[in-house]
């Protein structure tokens, strides 16, 4: 087994050995459910799809994912286990990847547990399950993107509060960069910035997935986005691990 997978397995077991996992999952499910049924008007819309759910998930991740990542490296520092982990014979990037994968799988589990919504729409009508599936894939990719950002931030600072606030702020920027408010504002002044904003926007790419469009260039976008921040994480870790 690749070292990254061994690290991921240990890490994931660690989530479930503490209340962190259960609190995260319960809050996620309660909020996702509540928002979908109330604000999203799930029943009143008269449509068998999960659009309201997909509209809220990125906003939930915006706060929940940084809560997950803020302790990623800070906790290893606090316990001193970072010294143990990084003196085991594994390339440093494998440790970075392993920690990211564990958090990603964990978000995947939280998403899977929203399956009652899928069952409900299928009982109530004939939804396009392909669109639902691609919507879920989009959610998972957004989680991955935010996780990669949060993990890199947590490698920069020992302070968990700073890690949380910075990660939320950065994810917010990437989440909203492509929104009409931002791009319209920019395009009247600096059109080139509007294009850049659209280019780096996670939400913009996510939109396609919720409409059932799985485009290769969007997949490439998420892969490079995650890859870039994991690389940044490894570089920062190398410089700051012993501080």
């Amino acid at each position, binding site marked *: *087994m690749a070292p990254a997978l*061994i690290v991921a397995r*240990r890490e994931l077991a660690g989530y479930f050995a503490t209340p962190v996992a259960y609190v995260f999952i319960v809050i996620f499910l309660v909020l996702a459910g509540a928002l979908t049924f109330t604000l999203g008007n799930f029943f009143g819309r008269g449509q068998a799809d999960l659009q309201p759910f997909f509209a809220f998930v990125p906003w939930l991740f915006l706060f929940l994912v940084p809560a997950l990542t803020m302790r990623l490296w800070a906790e290893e520092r606090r*316990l*001193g286990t970072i*010294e*143990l982990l990084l003196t085991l014979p*594994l390339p440093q990037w494998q440790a970075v990847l392993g920690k990211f994968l564990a958090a990603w799988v964990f978000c995947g589990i939280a998403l899977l547990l929203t399956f009652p919504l899928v069952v409900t729409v299928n009982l109530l009508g004939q939804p396009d399950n392909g669109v639902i599936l691609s919507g879920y894939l989009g959610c998972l990719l957004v989680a991955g993107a935010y996780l990669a950002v949060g993990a890199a931030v947590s490698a920069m600072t020992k302070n968990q509060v700073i890690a949380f606030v910075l990660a939320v702020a950065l994810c917010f920027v990437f989440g909203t960069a492509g929104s009409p408010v931002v791009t319209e504002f920019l395009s009247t002044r600096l059109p080139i910035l509007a294009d850049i904003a659209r280019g780096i926007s996670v939400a913009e790419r996510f939109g396609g997935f919720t409409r059932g469009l799985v485009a290769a260039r969007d997949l490439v976008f998420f892969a490079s986005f995650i890859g870039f921040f994991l690389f940044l994480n490894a570089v920062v870790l190398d410089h700051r691990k*012993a501080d």
Partner: protein
Amino acid sequence: MSALIEIERLTRRFGGFTAVDDVSFTVNRGEVLGFLGPNGAGKSTTMRMLAGFMPPSSGTARICGADILEQPVAAKRHLGFLPEGAPTYPEMTVTGFLEFAGRIRGFKGGELDDRVAHAMLLTQLEGVRLQPIETLSKGFKRRVGLAQALLHDPPVLVLDEPTDGLDPNQKHEVRELIRRMAPEKAIVISTHILEEVGAVCTRAIIIARGRVVVDAPPAVLEEEGSSLDDVFRRLTLGTEAHAGETA
């Protein structure tokens, strides 16, 4: 080539402060090096650099010929390292923790089980195999860290205060263990217990303010003064006073 550890002009600065200052030495197979010095002398910092955790400001080291900067993974493969304070993952069981370290080191299946069982036997941990580490007493936690360092029977051992917090029986056991392993390995231990040096070490290095002030067998050191204690005090207090004058 019998020098398993080669440290070459290792230096580490924190801002303007030099914690480890141009330290060089080698340790051969069969040697047990006692690494001594007052609090803050730079022992742990030196060991952290040797283990590939803290990047040196300058200089380098080799473990079994593998450069810690150029071939970090190869160097770490030959090394068993007990970091200061013996950090472990508190929520894991003793077995789970040792299996994790073993898997990263590439053991699997029956061999992994054997390695873990053997390491627990050496450090007398069988009684608590399935207990979460956070529920163990301080001495047991330290032994878990020690078991992790011994798991792969490495040719080079770097142990930062391995007997700190152990009861007298366990201190004795660990010293016996080190003595038994000594012939095939190069071992560096840091300690504040000077009688330990006479009991297990074939050689002692005393560092003060990041510099090596003495490198000699413990017997030779004891000839110089009335006891190792006196030698230690004279050498380390001397450097502090001297540094104070020049500063």
